[in-house]
């Protein structure tokens, strides 16, 4: 089908203004952010201590034993659990393994280049693992198939497909939601053959002990506390704070990287307060499944 040619002129003044603002943002990111914060608003229209909306979908990936797709604002993470079988360690014959990893591939942002995991991805994977260990999401002995012989290994792999900042909070939701969605086949260890055989019909949901949630913050120029920073804001922050809470809102960990405070108030305490309020509010929606 052939199309006709339009005659009107091309660019509107609105387009020109948008481009001018974007150009200023690109050339002078710090001043750009300062001007917004001076008006107590973020470039995306949020209040300073306001986090972005969260959506969670689970179970759509049939090749995984459990899966989730999480969006935190525009940051998007898919996570899948693959269960394999291994021999337990000699000193802990009844304990299985959980292996969480986050990948930040080149597809998700111009900041990341193809190749092995970036330093940022390594740091995030380590922090996620620590949150897993600290909050005891799963009792590792519940992954035992046969003491000393066979245990489950849960590979929990999260991949970011759109990076718009604060991957930690989004990844933690994705990992926990995928585990909560995980069903393992009923497995039997045969002492004669030394093989573990799984049922094709019977699957059992994983026993989840805890479903931690986190909330992260950044501090800009030692004055403004920004909740749930975007990829534009992140490089401009001098300090970041992450609060991890249990189901009941108890503190699992609070970490601060960077020395910046916001004047007289105790930053860590106010972050914990904000996180408690926010996470209590969003928890039912995140884990309704």
């Amino acid at each position, binding site marked *: *089908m*052939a*199309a006709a040619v339009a005659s009107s002129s091309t660019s509107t003044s609105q387009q020109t203004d948008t481009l001018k603002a974007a150009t200023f943002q690109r050339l002078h*990111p710090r001043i750009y952010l300062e001007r917004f914060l001076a008006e107590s608003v973020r470039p995306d229209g949020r209040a300073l201590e306001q986090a972005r909306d969260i959506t969670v979908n689970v179970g759509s990936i049939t090749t995984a034993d459990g899966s989730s797709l999480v969006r935190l604002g525009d940051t998007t993470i898919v996570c899948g659990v693959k269960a394999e079988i291994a021999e337990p360690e000699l000193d802990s014959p009844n304990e299985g393994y959980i292996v969480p990893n986050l990948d930040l591939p080149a597809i998700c942002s111009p900041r990341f280049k193809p190749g092995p995991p970036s330093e940022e991805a390594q740091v995030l994977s380590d922090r996620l693992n620590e949150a897993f260990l600290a909050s005891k999401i799963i009792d590792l002995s519940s992954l035992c198939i046969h003491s000393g012989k066979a245990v489950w290994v849960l590979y929990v792999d999260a991949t970011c497909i759109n990076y718009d900042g604060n991957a930690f909070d989004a990844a933690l939701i994705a990992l926990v939601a995928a585990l909560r969605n995980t069903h393992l086949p009923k497995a039997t260890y045969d002492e004669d053959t030394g093989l573990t055989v799984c049922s094709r019909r019977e699957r059992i949901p994983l026993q989840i002990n805890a479903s931690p949630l986190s909330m992260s913050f950044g501090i800009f120029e030692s004055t403004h506390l920004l909740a749930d920073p975007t990829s534009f804001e992140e490089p401009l922050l001098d300090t970041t704070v992450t609060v991890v809470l249990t189901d009941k809102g108890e503190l699992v960990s609070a970490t601060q990287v960077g020395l910046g405070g916001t004047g007289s108030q105790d930053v860590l305490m106010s972050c914990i307060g904000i996180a408690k309020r926010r996470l209590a509010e969003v928890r039912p929606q995140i884990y309704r499944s």
Partner: protein
Amino acid sequence: MAVDRVLPGQPILIPKGPAPLLGNGVYSRDGTVRASLLGVPRNQGSTLTITRITPRAPVPNSIVLGSVTRLTPIQAMVAITVVDGVPLPLGEEFTGVIRAQDVRSTEKDKVKIGDCFRGGDVVKGLVISLGDARSYYITTARNDLGVVFATSEAGATMEPVSWQEMRCPKTGRTEKRKCAKPEGV
């Protein structure tokens, strides 16, 4: 809004009369004019184009903005972040170079790079060639080209006072730069 958007590969009806020149976003193959971009075909003068405002690579005659990353006695390196008024996404940039002979149009052989640019300055330039494998060649040899934003040694944003000096509002001291004539002056 009765204008039709076209998709890459879609034929475009050319009205009878003199054939238009083909600009961006369209091409001719086997006697048929087709779109190569998603957008609305328009006549700009006698040229048929489809314009998309997307980040693009510099080409000769592109106006670029970027910040000075490194200085040597013979050239200034520039990280290009805006091409023809369209900013590149965060994390993307092209490498440009302003060679000493391309800084200004007069007394080219007396140019001292250190008296024209400093690291961190934002420069407006014109792409003169695709350069070599590494960088695009940029000139600032025009009144409206040169440093458009610079911070003084005291940390304040300076104002141009002539085409080769800027003044710090904090200390009142002047620093040497190849300044661009501010717009609208």
